[in-house]
């Protein structure tokens, strides 16, 4: 137990000081391996090589590439325009379009920041022009963006699956329903709030859209929906592996962009560069985490933790709550993926010891990490939305706008704890 505390300390100090996360993880792991027995260092090369050639993680660059292509080809912005035509008459009007568009874009992106930035860029000018409440506008966009890491394909879920050796396909299916439920909860909250305070959103006046306009808008929605169907349908029916689904999605996105006359060489190149850089950066952190996990395992901490937890006189739910609280606090300071990579080697065995389902826990964990994206001081989505209007929006305003959605996400976590089948029902129907 004392070793574990020291280990945590040697990791946390360089981490909080600002040393790159990958180096803090890997360096700390190396030091502890030397302290145990330098012979263990032989395993480091194997850890790195196995991590780099993990079959599960080959889907990561392809999913990111697809999200980049969707973003850069304008498919997402056209989808937003089309959705707003259908939803603007609901109480809350375009706020619902924010949530719906971010949900669907999430299903082709896997990144929260990309989701918030892409939809925010299109939505903000429209909402401002129509005098929608500023705080709620910013909050709904920041919060809608968080769905990017929950609704599949989700990069954190792929990483989670790879780290704990759980089926990514099942994780995707498990996250789908909670993702939809969260989007519905967000929309319901918006509708109720606008009904109580009609000044938050202007009511749509004048004649509604014509049949021709509606049909055109369906055509604008179709490409993105087709990509979603190809990805999720392939995985659900067992026709494609996660990597194959990512490749098919990328191909369909390219074809859709081509059909719409938006496929450009520069766009392809920039998307590729972006996807590769992100993958490389992420994988370097994972290598560090693997070295650290190797050290944790070699010191026998995993087993010791299990025994310690087993001996505790608390109900599993109480221990789970403590773990969730740790993630909630860490989420305020460290970005979502890094937290997951850093903590799983220590906390995941505890979850297994408590007999919680690994698939269910993956979804709960991602939902918790979403909260970190919209809580200050290190809420990436808050910064993203703020950066869309440089100098015009205060961080306080975005944070306050997003705060009710933090509570809704917490309610979502509570819902998943009370009714695990929200996550587990769909994976059970698979294959």
């Amino acid at each position, binding site marked *: 137990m004392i070793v574990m505390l020291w280990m945590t300390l040697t990791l946390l100090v360089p981490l909080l000081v*600002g040393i*790159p996360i990958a180096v803090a993880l890997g360096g700390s792991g190396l030091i502890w391996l030397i302290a145990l027995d330098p012979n263990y260092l032989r395993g480091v*090369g194997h850890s*790195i090589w196995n991590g780099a050639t993990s079959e599960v993680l080959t889907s990561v660059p392809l999913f990111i590439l697809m999200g*980049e292509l969707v973003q850069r080809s304008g498919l997402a912005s056209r989808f937003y325009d089309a959705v707003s035509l259908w939803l603007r008459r609901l109480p809350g009007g375009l706020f619902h379009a924010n949530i719906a568009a971010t949900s669907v874009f999430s299903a082709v992106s896997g990144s929260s920041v990309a989701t918030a930035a892409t939809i925010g860029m299109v939505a903000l000018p429209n909402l401002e022009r129509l005098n929608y409440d500023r705080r709620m506008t910013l909050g709904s966009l920041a919060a809608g963006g968080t769905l990017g890491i929950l609704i599949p394909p989700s990069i954190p879920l792929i990483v989670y699956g790879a780290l704990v050796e759980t089926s990514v396909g099942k994780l995707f299916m498990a996250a789908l329903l909670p993702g939809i439920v969260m989007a519905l909860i967000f929309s319901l909250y918006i509708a109720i709030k606008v009904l109580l305070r009609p000044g938050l959103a202007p009511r749509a006046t004048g004649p509604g859209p014509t049949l021709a306009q509606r049909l055109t808008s369906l055509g604008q929605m179709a490409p993105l929906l087709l990509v979603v169907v190809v990805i999720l349908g392939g995985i659900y029916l067992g026709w494609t592996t996660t990597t194959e689904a990512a490749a098919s999605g990328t191909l369909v996105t390219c074809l859709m962009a081509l059909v719409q006359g938006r496929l450009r060489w520069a766009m392809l190149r920039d998307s590729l560069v972006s996807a590769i850089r992100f993958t*490389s950066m992420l994988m370097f952190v994972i*290598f560090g985490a693997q070295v650290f996990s190797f050290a944790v395992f070699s010191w026998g901490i995993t087993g010791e933790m299990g025994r310690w937890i087993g001996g505790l006189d608390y109900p599993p739910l109480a221990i789970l709550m403590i773990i969730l609280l740790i993630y909630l606090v860490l989420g305020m300071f460290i970005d979502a993926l890094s937290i997951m990579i850093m903590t799983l080697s220590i906390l995941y065995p505890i979850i297994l010891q408590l007999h919680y389902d690994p698939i269910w826990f993956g979804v709960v964990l991602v939902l918790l990490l979403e909260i970190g994206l919209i809580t200050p001081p290190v809420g990436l989505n808050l910064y993203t939305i703020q950066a869309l209007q440089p100098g015009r929006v205060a961080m306080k305003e975005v944070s306050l706008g997003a705060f009710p959605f933090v509570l809704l996400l917490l309610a979502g976590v509570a819902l998943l704890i009370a009714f695990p089948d929200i996550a587990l029902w769909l994976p059970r129907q698979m294959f």
Partner: protein
Amino acid sequence: MESVEAKADPRFAWFERASFWIAMASCVLLLLFTLAEIAARPLGIQVYVGGEYNSMLMGWLIFFALPVVTRARQHLVVDFFNAMLGHRGRAVISWLGALIMVIYVAALLYFCAKLTLQSWNNNIRTQGILRTPVVWPQLGMVLGLLLMWISSVIVLLGETRDLFRAADRGARP
């Protein structure tokens, strides 16, 4: 999203750009092999290259992109507490981070080179039908890490310069 300065930024040395091109080619091949596998399946044709080479390409994609990621200082950091420090404090932390990065990458390079040598000596091959020697993709890993190490040394030199500048500024009345 991220900028794409890697493709044209003159700060990046030729070897970093060349390395990044290999990473890009690996990504495109990864995509094409996977698509070929999907397309061939209904025709009853087995495409072995995808299953066998995809994970190797993934390795190349990661390691050959690392030099540019390192030079562009895109490694993830927790900068919340760092941001509270003054200019000199931040310069010291950045220098320290760059120094530890050089040592850490050198250690990884050593362990990975050792693994590659072992694979070469024992003629280790993949378990798939093509039985490809593992040493080839592993050489890519070693080369990528070597280039990354050189890039991290360049970053360290830059950070050292910045550190002295920060110290000068502090010493000036």
